[in-house]
């Protein structure tokens, strides 16, 4: 389905199923950028390490360190993922984003000026086609 969707000048943002299943089925040319999200927990880092390895064969990969509280968190993720792709996108831990999730609200509406949403806005600028 991802392969069949036409871009036609628009941007498709796909929220994949959790884990590695869909990534394993992606073929070359179906995806431009894979955003691999990890948080400072061993399990999520292990999934991210595998996801980076798989996605690298078909598309550009960016690593996102989410819910980060310190530089040590970023380094934990960088080392655990064995990341060699340059800058990591850092999304700071933001209690207001967590609260928005709990309440079923969009963080961009509930916490637009918080560090979590600001970091994703910066990411959008990086991704936007020239």
């Amino acid at each position, binding site marked *: 389905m991802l392969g069949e969707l036409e871009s036609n000048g628009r941007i498709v943002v796909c929220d994949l199923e959790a884990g590695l299943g869909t990534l394993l089925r992606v073929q070359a040319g179906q995806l431009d950028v894979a955003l691999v999200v990890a948080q400072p927990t061993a399990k999520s880092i292990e999934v991210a390490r595998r996801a980076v390895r798989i996605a690298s064969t078909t598309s550009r990969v960016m690593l996102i360190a989410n819910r980060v509280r310190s530089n040590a968190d970023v380094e934990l993720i960088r080392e655990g993922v064995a990341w060699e792709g340059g800058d990591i996108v850092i*999304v700071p831990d933001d209690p207001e984003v967590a609260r928005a999730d709990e309440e079923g609200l969009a963080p961009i509406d509930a916490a637009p000026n918080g560090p979590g949403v600001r970091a994703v*806005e910066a990411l959008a600028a990086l991704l936007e086609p020239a």
Partner: protein
Amino acid sequence: MKIAVAGKGGVGKTTIAGTLARTLARRGNEVLAFDADVNPMLGVSLGVGSERTEQLVAVRQALDEGEAEHQPTVEGMEQAFGAAGPDGVWLLVCSRIDRADPG
């Protein structure tokens, strides 16, 4: 351009995807937000609301159960299983909940 957000469940994938889609739309891009998660909550993070998100999931479910007409084209599917969200983001739910792997 096609962007996919991947990672372990509970890592904040959906929240990032929803916020990213809204931001890209606000910056003047036409954006399709495509929910392929077996736990389809992208609509909530986009700001479509829990109720509307569940309605869209139900439409998708009806197709799997043979109660809705199959759409012959991708464009048809986008219309049948999609809805307009805030900032003009078009949300499309394509998860197959009935085939979800446990865990």
